[in-house]
């Protein structure tokens, strides 16, 4: 304590032997040297060599990058790690560097030191980067790729169809272009790239409590936040209300109707309409404590079956929901038109009603290459754009 007090006294006392000018000059030079050193050191951490100096980077993502157009192309322009992963403005850069210290921890303690461990962690790591890109509108991409400089006429029609609307909204590049420089996490591999794009977008959508969202894929439902006791499956494009978020889990409220025949396992979008929202496990469906019934024994005259209005609250994973259904419908509509017109003119969605579509769809879908998740989405799209939902049938 004496030493500290002495040092404090020395520092507190005005200088006697050195002039203020010297102090200023020395401090200034010292600052420059320090600042330069700091920046040089930081620049070193920005080089490709530094990034791939730990083998987690070198063996995985670095190898993958080398297969892409960002590494090798006819123009000879190359994007290195930091071009995309480190913000170019100083404050953000420092913030990012501080976050990155976690990676050093990881390198030392071997969190991802085998390919298996890396793959297992890849989705989580990717999601961090994707949220960052989502938040800054993919600024690092746009340091080179500028919407204003894009020549629509030089693009293929298909590219233009997606890019022009994106430019109008100044959409974040990585919303669509996930996996452009590295492999996608295995969990996200998909037979249908259009749908996969939306599932990816959902991983970076922020969930606010009390707000309404729509599932971008089918999601397992659980009774607990730890997601150990499965209760059923939420179907794609189903409306849910977010009640609470905890770690990687979210508590959802699902409002639905169900048939009062059998176990009531299937939840439907609306009364008398076979548009399924979720499938519950048998004991959950029968559990009065889990299912809140608002109306019961409402008879559907068209079939004679009694229906009940219910709601249920369950936990599920985060990162699987979109704020709107429109993009899902767009994807589904396009998939429907493309797949079905291979053999015949596809009927307009409003040509049939919601309860006829499952029959028409199941009779023909075997001819298409649609994956099971895509089929589920396309059928729901057809039902929710059927004659029950639009005025002009035929």
């Amino acid at each position: 304590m004496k030493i500290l007090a002495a040092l404090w006294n020395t520092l507190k006392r005005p200088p006697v032997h050195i002039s203020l000018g010297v102090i200023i000059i020395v401090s200034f030079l010292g600052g420059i040297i320090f600042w330069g050193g700091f920046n040089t050191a930081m620049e070193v951490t920005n080089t490709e060599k530094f990034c791939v100096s730990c083998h987690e980077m070198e063996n995985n993502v670095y190898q993958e990058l080398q297969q892409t157009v960002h590494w090798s192309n006819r123009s000879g322009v190359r994007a290195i790690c930091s071009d995309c992963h480190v913000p170019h403005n100083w404050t953000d850069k420092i913030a990012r560097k501080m976050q990155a210290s976690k990676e050093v921890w990881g390198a030392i303690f071997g969190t991802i030191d085998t390919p298996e461990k890396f793959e297992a962690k890849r989705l989580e790591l990717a999601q961090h980067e994707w949220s960052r890109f989502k938040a800054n509108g993919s600024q690092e991409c746009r340091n080179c790729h500028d919407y204003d400089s894009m020549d629509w006429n030089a693009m293929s029609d298909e590219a233009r169809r997606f890019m022009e609307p994106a430019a109008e909204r100044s959409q974040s590049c990585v919303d669509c272009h996930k996996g452009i420089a590295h492999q996608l996490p295995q969990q996200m591999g998909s037979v249908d790239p259009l749908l996969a794009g939306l599932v990816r977008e959902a991983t970076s959508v922020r969930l606010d409590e009390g707000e309404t969202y729509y599932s971008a894929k089918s999601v397992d439902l659980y009774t607990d936040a730890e997601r150990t006791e499965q209760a059923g499956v939420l179907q794609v494009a189903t409306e849910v209300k977010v009640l609470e978020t905890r770690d990687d889990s979210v508590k959802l409220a699902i409002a639905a109707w169900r048939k009062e025949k059998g176990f009531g396992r299937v939840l439907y979008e609306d009364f008398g309409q076979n548009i399924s929202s979720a499938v519950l496990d048998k004991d959950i469906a029968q559990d009065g404590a889990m299912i809140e019934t608002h109306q019961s024994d409402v008879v559907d005259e068209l079939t004679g079956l009694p229906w009940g209005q219910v709601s249920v609250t369950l936990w599920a994973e985060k990162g699987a929901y979109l704020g709107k259904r429109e993009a899902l419908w767009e994807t589904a509509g396009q998939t429907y038109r493309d797949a079905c017109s291979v053999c015949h003119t596809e009927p307009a969605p409003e040509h049939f009603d919601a309860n006829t579509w499952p029959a028409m769809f199941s009779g023909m879908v075997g001819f298409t290459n649609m994956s099971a998740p895509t089929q589920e989405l396309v059928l729901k799209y057809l039902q929710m754009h059927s004659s029950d939902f639009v005025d002009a049938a035929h």
Partner: protein
Amino acid sequence: MTISRRSFLKGAMAGSAASLIGPGLLASSALAAEGAEVGLGVWKTSGSHWGALNALVKGGKVAEIKPFGADRHPTEMLNGIKGLIYNPSRIRYPMARLEWLKHRQDADRTTRGDNRFVRLTWDAALDLFHEELERTQTDYGPWALYAGATGWRQTGQVHSCGNHMQRAVAMHGHFVKKVGDYSTGAGQVILPYVLGSTEVYSQGTSWPLILENSKTVVLWGNDPYKNLQVGWNCETHESYAYLEQLKAKVADGSIRVISVDPVRTKTQNYLGCEQLYLNPMTDVAFMLAMAYTLYNEELYSQEFIDAYALGFDDFIAYVQGEGDDGEAKTPEWAAPICGVDAEQIRDFARLLAADRTQLLFGWAIQRQQHGEQPYWMGAVLATMLGQIGLPGGGISYGHHYSSIGVPSSGASAPGAFPRNVDAGKTPEHDNTDFQGAASTIPVARWIDCLLNPGETIQYNGSEVVFPDIRMCVFSGCNPWHHHQDHNRMKQAFRKLETVVTIDYAWNATCRFSDLVLPACTQFERNDLDVYGSYSNRGVLAMHKLVDPLFHSRSDFDIFTDLCRRFGRDEEYRQELDEMGWVKKLYDECREANTALSAAPGGDEPTSSMPDFATFWKDGYVDFGPGENWVRHADFRQAPEVNALGTPSGFIEISSRKIGRYEYDDCQAHPRWMEKAERSHGGPGSDRYPLWLQSVHPDKRLHSQMCESEALRATYAVQGREPIFIGPEDAEARGIQDGDLVRVYNDRGQLLAGAVVSDDFPSGVVRIQEGAWYGPVGPEIGALDTYGDPNTLTLDVGTSKLAQAPSANTCVVEIERFEGEAPAVTAFGGPITVDV
């Protein structure tokens, strides 16, 4: 090509080995590869609805056709391929009908069908096509153009002709479309209400499971041995291996097969199975009596009905005589209608309930008036038997079609050239105002539509207002074969200002068109397709065998050039050429299969598709066999979760939804209804006592290949289409086998050649559909010189529900034709007129 001694020897050796082992085993190595040299020619791979094939091309001509190696049961129709390419009925040049060319929309339309045509250049013809589209869209609107009808395109996913025509026409403007088809029109509308799926085109329970589990197999109006010869893609006839096994099981008594049919079918004769005769069109009465027996003898499964079905009570009340008609549907009630003993009906019902029974329905019984009813009734019987969802039990409506029942490989199949306008693009004439008329019409009612524009009809729970159609475009589609009552069609076609047809052969639709454009055959262009139809067994390269004959061009070229006339040819072909498209479809298929095999539980074989060059050289990629599967097993296992697509999710024995439509000809549950005309004592049988069935042909695909001369010679009688008649009816009319006969009713008359056959009972005759229509002239009522059964058939909707064709509701009389027979006018193209 130069021939070295070595290549000659190689060819000779391959030839001799092939003759020892047979073509099957050697095909992949010696015959399939493009450019494999054998003797003086080159073997190439191609495919057709009649089968995947290898063709020897010599000196720019197709010299020989052999079945593809994987096809162990090739059809005789492969012998017709050469005759299809080199054929006097080929359309040689773009042609315009003389009267129309002179006066266009002001032409005397009673001359339509005179077959007098003028040759045009391609430029002139496409200018005319474009002008007429412009005129129709400008002077009228989208309601005046019908380009919705499509048919059995030639195989090949790039050149799929309906896709080309509809894309090009849609890029120009909107048009009237169709719903439904002529094969399964009633079935595909009724079954969604009952079983929750169209069923008719669905994959069915795998044959191995039927062979293993069924004790009784019922072929109901079903002739798979005949009909499986053709397939939607490039057939490889895998079903026949199972029919062989079925034949063996019939022989050793382990499976009983019963053909419920008035006629001894080709399948029955092949299998050596039993027949249960019943009068034509009385199936529903017969089935109601079966239901009566099952119910009253308590042979039905109440348990299954309780768990899986709704509406049994209303139905059974009707059966028991507690319905509005007050008539119990006892076997005694049905016996005189059906021509079957009451005890035989009971025995049959008991037999089906005794053990595992697989019902296999053909499509014939729904191609008649009230065709919805027998299909619905079949589902009701299967529900009462309670075996739906069990291997070798339940009901199928498709095992006679395109290798249904052969397990699917599960691989991704190649896509096709797009039928639709690209997303985000709009047509030149973006007018969607149909002026209150329907933009989609039930396909079999389009002649009604031409005759009665503005009229409203009931259809499947909605109302359809007929648009006032002025112009039609057909591509690879022959309505003058598939639509009923040609004399009525003649009347209707006089309402049309312009008819444009694109095809490779001068069929009757060309005769009744104004502008005809020659497409080349599938053997004159490069393409690819699936082989194995429903088994989706692999992808086949369809090498161009020879250049397009005469002035014909590929659909791709024709419609690219049409689009050039409004400046959108690059958009049309998406800046790719023919081979670019073949490669694109292959590469996309390869990518999709790579993704499939990477997905959890992915399949190894599909992941190893070679690159395009290798595929094109090898001629095919094999996906390997699929796995056995049981139709509706998932529903049986968990009816709630795997609900059917019916309104309730369960089997609907009665349908409240249909009941609400309040149709007199299709009510809330299946019923027996008398037909407009019926043989065997039914209405009209006093004047026309013979029922005419127009089944799918044995040696054609509908009307395709009728023009193939050498093949036609194997079945034609005095150059006319055969009419099959039983010995009793023939004798009563003094008709001998081989005689020329006139077949007639109030709707029309035709010449045909009599084939007297023991397979046909009294009161039943057959002319196979697809015989080319060849009237002596354009006037209504003119004699058909070749023998198209649709000269005689009835043109009414099955009911207000499906409005489907009723071709099999038709009675006729026959007489020996005396005097000098007019020459056959069906073949050989138009009468070319010079101007």
